[in-house]
Each structure stands twice: as C-alpha cells, then as structure tokens.
C-alpha cells in the first residue's frame, strides 16, 4: 500500500520533513514537523520513504501491515500530547487543535460539533453510533484543558440513532448536554452553532472564543482521546464515499482510513464507478473541491463524491458566490464544465470583507437575491450559477 502524505494538511505553513528518501519508517513515526503554525505529520504505514518533495512525502508501504504504531513521545500535559499527535480540526478546517485549545475559558463552553452538515456525509454519525464514549472522553479532556464548566453536543435530531447512542452515555452527566440544530445547511458552521446554542451572534471573522466557547468536531475529539490515552498520532481519517458508485449511492462510511491513500484505492474498495460521471469532489458537496483519482486522503478529507455528469449549457453565466457554499473559483470551474462562459460575477448580499477574506454575516439566514440577480442580468448574464446555501 503506497501512501502520499501531504505536508500541508492544516491551517498554517507546510511542515518540514524529518525523514529522507529510502529511509525505513514505521507506522506512527514522525515524518514532518512544522516550523511555525502547523501540525506534526506521521507515517500511516510501515514502509520505505520513496520520495520527499516540498509538498509531500511518498511512502512505499510493506505488504504486511499491522495495527502497531510508534507512540508519541511522553509529554507533560494533555495539550502537549495533542500537539505531538498532530491533531487538527477534522471537520474540514484543519486548524491545529493544540493552538485552539491553548486558552482558558474560565467557566465557558465546549461544544462538540456533531452536525455533520454536508449532505451524504455520515461518518461522524457512524462514529457516535459505534463509539460514543471515545468522543465523550475527548470532550471531557477539552473541558479540563480549557477550564470549561459546561459542554454541549450539538446534533440534528434527524440523526436519531447517533443521538440516542451518545445521549445514553451522558445521561447522568450534568455538565454535558445535547442541543438540537435545525436540519439545514450550514447549521454545522461554528457561528450558526453559537447562535443556536448560546444565542450569541458572532460578527463575521470572529472566533467562538469571543463567546467564551470552543467548538470541536466529534472526530477531532476522538483524535484527542486517542492521543492522550493511547499515545496515538493522527494517521487515520474517517470518510464517507458517495455518489455514482455501486454500493455507495447513499454514502458508505469507512472509519480509520490511513492518511495518504489515494482516492482510486478507496473507490476500488467501494465498488464500480457508474459511468458517465461528472467529477470527483474531495470533501462535502458544498465546500469540497475538485479532485481526481490520484488525490489522497488528508487529516481533513471528509468525503469522496462522484458526481452526476454536467449538463450542457452553452450560455452566458452570472455567478453568485457564498461563503458557506461555492465561491467564484469553484463556480467558474463548473460553468466551464457545462460549456458556458462567465460574463458577470458578484457575491451574496450577506458577504462582508474581513481582512482579505469575505465572510457571511448571518450564515444560514439567507437574504433575497433579487437585487443581485438584476445586477448580473444587467451585465449580460443569461443564466445564473449560485453558490448560496439557500434559495
């Protein structure tokens, strides 16, 4: 099994390799560490380093693999263990967890994000159904690290099985509570969660810390538990495969996929691709990006989707970008795929500039777009491609 492990799987700078080509490495061995903001990266297989580049390390895995791994080194405290293990936000953001948690909430809140918001993705729910305790223990560690007094697990009530599974385990715990999220996209967004759970409207660009809270995805919590209890580095990712593929039309979950394996190998494990298909999306349908058969699983890959073929629309497109969904680049890509031409471009009225990024003022509370549509039409658009999350 060959793996290609990227050096930038997180917010921050690419990590620096600590191994050389032809060097033999063990599963779990540290192979790159960050200079500055970033995360430690570990080998997900036993094997020999085939190639080291500035972007990735390729490892030729031995035929025989096992469950053993090199444990992370002894640390003085939980936070250090999380850092050593290279834990980053597994929900997709990839922010280094040890940096996020290096704070004192002095009685604030920890929120376990079990919204699993993107359509078809369901590996987080599967995790809660199968092992709610590993998540709860992670939540407790985070409460301890950050001096939080209360924790919430936010989940959509439609995910009954997962919800019941985790609720059973916290029944007697007065400090942890379940909160429901509305069943809409993007209710898993941090700011939507804070609005729903704490009633706090965060300004665009502000972090949950402003509301005395941290939000962690449930898989991140699992990784925190594994780092602290088993001294296990992040070398695996839970993913969902779905779309035009036999046996996974409504999504098939793979827990603990070695980081660095290719999309192609995961597809082969799932079933035949149903041809013709449009593209392969790495991540969720809303926020994922185009990938290909050689794309690899990283610490933040949530899913692999094989999409419908693109319809043909050789026309003039106006595009309307959104923070929660597709933005300009992605919309242009789709327009081109349909054979169209982008003649006008604008952003949803909610988008405001924060630093050099555009952020949504009120995620999930979408405005009417008439004005924007007229603007696009005026600029020659005959059709509109929208990235907004609601119509």
């Amino acid at each position, binding site marked *: 099994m060959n793996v290609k492990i990227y050096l930038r799987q997180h917010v921050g700078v690419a990590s620096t390799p600590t191994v050389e080509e032809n060097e033999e490495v063990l599963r779990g061995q540290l192979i790159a560490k960050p200079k500055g903001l970033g995360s430690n990266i570990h080998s997900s297989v036993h094997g020999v380093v085939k190639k080291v580049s500035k972007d990735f390390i390729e490892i030729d895995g031995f035929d025989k693999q096992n469950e053993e791994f090199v444990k992370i080194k002894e640390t003085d405290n939980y936070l250090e263990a999380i850092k050593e293990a290279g834990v980053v936000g597994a929900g997709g953001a990839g922010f280094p967890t040890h940096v996020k948690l290096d704070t004192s909430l002095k009685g604030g809140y920890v929120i376990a994000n079990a919204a699993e918001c993107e359509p078809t993705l369901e590996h987080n729910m599967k995790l809660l159904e199968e092992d709610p305790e590993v998540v709860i223990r992670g939540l407790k560690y985070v409460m301890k690290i950050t001096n939080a007094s209360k924790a919430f697990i936010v989940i959509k*009530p*439609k995910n*009954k099985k997962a*919800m*019941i*599974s985790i*609720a*059973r385990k*916290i*029944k007697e715990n007065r400090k942890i509570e*379940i909160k*429901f999220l*509305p*069943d809409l996209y993007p209710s898993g967004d941090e700011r939507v969660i804070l609005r729903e759970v704490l009633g706090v409207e965060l300004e665009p660009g502000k972090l949950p810390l402003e509301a005395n809270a941290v939000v962690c995805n449930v898989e991140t919590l699992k990784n925190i538990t594994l780092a602290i209890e088993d001294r296990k580095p992040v070398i695996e990712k839970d993913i969902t495969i779905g779309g035009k593929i036999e046996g996974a039309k409504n999504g098939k979950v793979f827990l603990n996929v070695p980081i660095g394996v290719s999309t192609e190998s995961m597809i082969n494990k799932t079933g035949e691709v149903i041809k013709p298909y449009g593209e392969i999306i790495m991540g969720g349908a809303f926020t994922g990006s185009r990938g290909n058969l050689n794309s690899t699983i990283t610490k933040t890959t949530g899913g692999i989707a094989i999409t419908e073929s693109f319809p043909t629309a050789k026309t003039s497109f106006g595009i309307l970008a959104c923070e929660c969904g597709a933005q300009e680049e992605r919309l242009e890509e789709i327009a081109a795929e349909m054979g169209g031409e982008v003649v006008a471009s604008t952003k949803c009225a909610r988008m405001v500039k924060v630093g050099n990024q555009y952020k949504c003022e009120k995620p999930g509370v979408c405005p009417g777009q008439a004005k924007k549509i007229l603007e696009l039409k005026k600029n020659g658009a005959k059709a509109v491609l929208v990235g907004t999350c609601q119509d």
Partner: protein
Amino acid sequence: MAITAEEAREHKDEFAITCCRFEAGEEIKPSNLEDPNIVPDLEDSGLLEIPENCLKIGEVLGAKLKVTVDALTPLTPDLVEGLKETVAEKKEEVEESFKEKEVEERVVPIKGIRDSEYVRIHIGEGKDINLDIPVCISQGFGADTKSENIVKDSALELKEDSDEDKIIRTLTRKHFEIDEVKFGDETKIQGTTLYIRENIVEEAIDSQDLVTNIELDIITPDRYGEYSNTIMDVQPIAVKEEGGLGEGITRVIDGAVVVVTGTDEKGVQIGEFGSSEGEIDRNVLFNRPGSPDDGDILIKTNVTIKEGKNMERPGPMAAHRATDVITQEIREVLKKADEELIVNEEEFVQKHRAKRKKVVIVKEIMGQGAMHDNFIMPDEPVGTLGAKANVDLGNVPIVVTPLQILDGCIHALTCIGPASKETSRHYFREPLVLETMNDEDIDLLAVVLVGSPQANNEKFYVSRLLGTTVEAMNVDGAIVTTEGFGNNHIDFASHIEEIGKRDIPVVGMTFSGVQGELVVGNKYMDAMIDLNKSRQGIENEILSNNCLTKEDAKRALAMLKAKMAGETIKKAERKWSSDIKMNNIALIEKATGEKIELEPNETLLKMSEKRKKIYEKDK
C-alpha cells in the same frame, strides 16, 4: 423521524412528540411527529421526558401549534389549539403485560361443517352390517365403488373433530429407587443398590477415538461441595420395557442421574459461552427440571478429549457417546430388574380434547454445530444409539408427540454450562409440555422441534419450513420456546413471525432479562415470557438457573389463552424488571385461585468465586 399517515393511524394512541422544530401556526401532520417506536429509546437515553398530560397522536393530528416548539417536544394541551375531542380519557387500568380476564370457555363452532353436510347413514333393517371406516382417505381400496363413497364421507366427518375427548395414547413410567451406587464386578441392581462394572470405563474410553480418558465418579450428596468440570448434561437413566419412545412403559431410576462433564487434554472446559465448572453446590441450581434434584447421587463422567477438540462438533459428541456406553449397560440391567423393586408408577396421558383450542408447542433447540446440537429419537430414552443429530437433519422442523418429549426423545448435546440451556433431563421433565398437555382448556396437538442453525440464511430457511408445518396443523395458538440467547433470537423471532403472519396467536418464551435483550423483533412478538430467574437478569453460568420452569409454563399458557380470546397484551416496560413477572403471577393467581410456586434462584446458593469476581461485585 417523521411518520407516515398510515403509521399515525396505527399508533393513534401513542404519545405525540415532535420530530423536528416546528413553527407556531403550523398544522400538525404525521410528518411533524416522532416515530413512536423510538420514543422508549429517547426516554431511556434521557433525551425526552413525557409529562402526564402529553397528548396522543390521534388527538393532535389536524390541530394547530400555538407556539414554536423544538424537536422532541411532547405535545401538551397548552401548546396546541383545535384539539380533537377523541377518546382521550380511556385509560388502561392494568399496568401489565396482559389483561386479567381469562379465556372464556366458549365452545367454538367447528368451521366448515354445517348440519346439512353430514352424511347420514340410516340402516332401517339389517343383519351383520360391518362398516370399517379407515381414518385416512386413500384411493382405490374399496372394491365396490358404492361403499368407497360412504367410506370417504364418513372419514371426512371423523377428521374434522369428534365431539368427545379421546385418549390418543399413554405412557407409563415405572420408578426404581436407588439409594446407593457402588463399583463392582458386574453392573447390576440389587435392592436399592446399583453396581457399576469397574472396568467398563476402559470400554467407554476405547469406544471413541477422540476420548483419551474418563474418570467415573459417584458423587453422593455429602460431596456436592467438591469441584467438577463444566456440566455438559444431566441425564435420567431410563429404558423401554414395552413400546417405542413415547408410548408403552418406561423404567426409570430415581435417586441417581448421569452427569457428563469434561475438558480437553489441556484442561479447557467443553463449553462455549460460559461453563459451570466449580463446586457443584455453588454452580448448580438443584431441583430444576433439567438439574439433579437435591439428594440425587451423581454418576459423573469426567471425559478428557483430544486437545483442541472441545470446540469442534466431534469432541463433545464423543464425550457423550463414551458416557452412554456406561449408561447403556445400566439401562440393560434396569430393563431386567425385578418388578418387585418398582416403588411408584406414573401415567402420562396424551388426550385429544374435543372442541378446545388447538395448540402446538414449538421448541427451538440448538443446532449451530460444535457443542450446539441434539440427538433426536434414540432407541432408548435419552440414549445415543439409533438417534440422529439435528444438525445432520438440517435443523428442519420435526414433529413429535408430547409423550415422546417426556420419554427422552432428545439427548441434549448443547453446551449446558450457561444457565439458559436445556439438559436431557429438562426434556424428560419438560414443564411446558406437561402443563399444556394436562390443561383442560387446551387440545395439545404436537411438539415441533426446530434446530437453530448457525448461518442467517439457514435460520430463515428452517423458519419458513416451520411456518408451513404449523399452518398445516390448523391450530388456534402456538407457544415458541428457545434456549440460550443472542444468535438464536434471530430465528426465534422469525419463527414467531412465520406463525403470527398466518393469523395464529403466538406466545414466545426465552431467557432475556438484562443480558439477553432481544436483538431483533417484529410485530408478532407482543406476548413474550421471560425465563430469567437470576437476581440481576443475567446469564450467571449456574446450571439450569434461567431455564423454563412450571411457573413460566403457567404464565405462557395464561398469556396464550388471553391472546386466543382476542385480548390485547399490554406492552412490557422498557427496562427489565422482575415486577412485570410478579404482576402477571398475581393476576393469574387471582383469576384462577391457584397458588403458583415461584422457583428459587441463585441467591439460595453459596456464592462461587466466579460470581463474586465477575457477576456479583455488588454483593
């Protein structure tokens, strides 16, 4: 999740809980409501608390929400306007799994036969008229076509139902008291002493390739405190004096039983899930149908089989066959024993009870292979010779008479260690068969044995066959029992479904308690009897502790009668509690005026190390 209109109708009397957030002013539709089937889980997990004034689904449909409510909100009158005036007041009084009312003793008219359809043979005057009416209708045996016609119709009339009770057959048990068992030069019964030939052990060892050693021990009650390997079976010593299995006369020894125990050469117990090794008096619940009675002398073989064979089918089988070499020799002397030594005679009567509810008992027996097997229909009661293993028979349903069960037609090869498995002696004294056969309100037709195979597809295969078997019997009710728990619950549930979907009222009996929670279920499983007797509701590896007893049989029969009379059985509480059973017992006692003796459980025994360390740390 939201429910459909059809489900809403079906569950109109269940609590109305919202499934998602809904806005004020919205009309309440099935799509706004939570599936009642998962409400108990939601309550159990602490996600939901149902207030006393919670409305029912039938009441809220079509009403309007007054305020915006979150998901999983129990709808109460203050949240809703425009409620339907329905039968909201009708409350069940009996907090129980079934209602108090007993089955009415109503004579059911026989289906299909009207008065005018009888063939009446009137003979005005005549001499020497003989009508031989065969029971079966086969073709071509009447020489004269005219008489054949009469024969056929008369036979038909007979077959439907006769007006009178009829004894089908009887089985007599002659009891021989044994109060001493000794080794001697030859096997013989002298007075109340049984001598066992000393060198028979070598023959027993030699009879089986896989058996490397046997220690034969005679355990008298004063030695009950000694260690024993796991008990693989408890067997009565019985032999036919007259007739085949299930009829005629059987001789049986009182005061001594054969106990099969064993390990492999490495000392590994021959048992899979749990085993009852340890001090006998701490690991055996005496006086259960399947266990030794307190005071019984145990003729105990401790069989050693080849290493690693303890988990393979031929291993345990060899241990049983080797032991049976010894038992068979005792049977032979018992057969010839002096009539004078008979201390007691017992008669079992299998009766056709006219115009009573026809009932069949289905006993699911283990058939997964390894040590989950049973020899069926041996030549002698509980023997091995002449029998076939139900695994070899494909685990398919086999119809036997109640008397065949009581005459030892099953030699149990099941790993008996667990508290919920049935020994050979259990079948010999099967309480459900006894109770049902003797119940004046019931016409017990037959007992169907069906094996529980390992693979799921085979489970459904045998289950479908069971469905057709039971269908052909045209019964009014059925009781399905099983032994053990877990894997076999899949086919157990399927059997109940196959019977239930043919509109036959059916009651299920299994160990469940806390540990044996049913893994599957279907809508026909609404009348279940839990065989648990343990304090904690667990499999505690004490021999026969959680097996079917007389008290269970009485509850099952009461429940089946209620169901056949069209009563609804109340849903059980979500959580296991022995209160349900106690309530049921009280109801039956009240209705019948008969006191039901409850069986003691393991709390009566001295506590073994295993219980202290594993099962009962709380004590």
